[in-house]
């Protein structure tokens, strides 16, 4: 499925919620079900610097596609990463580079985009894109 299609799916799911409680409960559930990152990758190098919670992201290329794994010590943050991973993992680096991120606004997570939120959603998206750029550069060199 394309990134765009997956994002539409996520927006559809979120549109079924009536209030913030349901939205948060869903994110908490997503956070709890996020496949954990391999402990070996939970290194300080893989930490995305956010002020309040720790976020680790690892990326690797499998058959030409980028696969992201991640973890956080805060559960809501983990839920947000789970959504991002669903939208961007298992795609080619080029597609991740070009992907639009407007769906984050549409699912009511806009408040988490503010840099003062300090949960690093902005940094997370940036980090995923940086990984994509790095791997694409590697592919181009081959």
């Amino acid at each position, binding site marked *: 499925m394309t990134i765009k299609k997956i994002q539409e799916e996520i927006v559809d799911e979120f549109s079924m919620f009536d209030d*913030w*409680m349901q939205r*948060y*409960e869903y994110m*908490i559930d997503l956070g709890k079900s996020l496949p954990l990152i391999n402990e070996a990758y939970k290194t300080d190098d893989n930490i995305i610097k956010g*002020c*309040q*919670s*720790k976020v680790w992201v690892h990326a690797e290329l499998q058959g030409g596609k980028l696969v992201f794994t991640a973890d956080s*010590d*805060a*559960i*809501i*943050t983990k839920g947000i990463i789970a959504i991002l991973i669903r939208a961007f993992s298992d795609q080619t680096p080029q597609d991740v580079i070009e992907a639009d991120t407007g769906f984050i606004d549409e699912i009511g997570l806009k408040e988490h985009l503010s840099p003062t939120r*300090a*949960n690093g959603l902005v940094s997370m998206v940036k980090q995923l894109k940086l990984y994509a750029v790095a791997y694409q550069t590697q592919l181009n060199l081959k």
Partner: protein
Amino acid sequence: MAFDVTKIRKDFPILKRQVNERPLVYLDNAATSQTPQQVIGAIVDYYHNYNANIHRGVHTLSQEATDKYEQARIKIQQHFNAVKAYEIILTSGTTHSINIVANGFSSLVNKGDEVLVSAMEHHSNIVPWQMLCERTGAVLKVVPMSLEGELLMNEYDKLLSGRTKLVFCNHVSNALGTVNPIKEIIEKAHKVGAVVLVDGAQAAPHIKTNLQELDVDFYTVSAHKMCGPTGVGILYGKEELLNKLPPYQGGGEMIAEVTFEKTTYADLPHKFEAGTPNICGGIAFGAALDYMNNIGFDAIATYEHELLVYATERLLEIEGLKIYGTAKDKTAVISFNIEGLHPYDIGSILDKLGIAVRTGHHCTQPIMDFFKIPGTVRASFSFYNTLEEVDVLVEGVKRARAMLL
């Protein structure tokens, strides 16, 4: 005058606000306090009627603004009981105040001298001294604290010596609420000839500080934590010490005479007040002190203690909740965590319920490291909070716990 919280709340327009479709419950007072109509009125009055630059204009507006600004300085002097009004330097806030002293002492401290800080300082009362030590070769030593969040005074005694040049301590800890025994700290420091700076940012909103009685050398306050505006605060310093300190910033206002060969500095307080100050802010700070004194600091302290006792008791009902900072003498600040939960998650859910708390390390990473936690949820109360708001907080935390666990 009897303390009437319902009446007091009417003075604060922001308390009528809704956040996320719920009545705002503002419990982040240790970060910044809210502003009563009386102070907002003073700000509006300034811009409506006599906005002008001070200390140099011959025209009427400038005279009026200068008079009001200097009257505010006298109000501040009287409130904190300083000997002279010119010992009150108006700054942009506590951080600025501390930096004036730390910078000034660079030329007064030598290699091998010792500088003591308490284990529960805000970053703003650690970093400037680390920088001072880097510049001068002085050694930074830390006065440790107990698990309750009280300074270990016997360790302090051991650290004090003839080498101790400076001692820094907050009056009240922003993360734990501990009221430190600063009178004893000051007396002991003076016996070895050390100079003491007390960061009063968290104490001034709750305790009426008497500078002469404390015999403190330097004391710092931020107006925005005590019903005043942001961007203004004070550095109090004893006259002889302020005279010894070199100026921090050069510019207009702080000079007596300037030629390209030599500049002589102005007298106190202007030596440390380069450039156009926050005139409106200074005047509004005076109005904030009037407002709080009108309610009365004794009444405020009694009421806030009641809030602290009730909130502590009710929060402890919650399973797995642990309070950090259980000193015998503390202000109405409660830092807590719930077993298995990240403070950020709790804070996010409380926000959705209209409850404003602070989460994180509160600019006190050494304290968090001491307790081996990433941060806490901090509810900090003011005299305009109510017992009912404590109940809303407790219900909110219970709900967050149920959602997150």
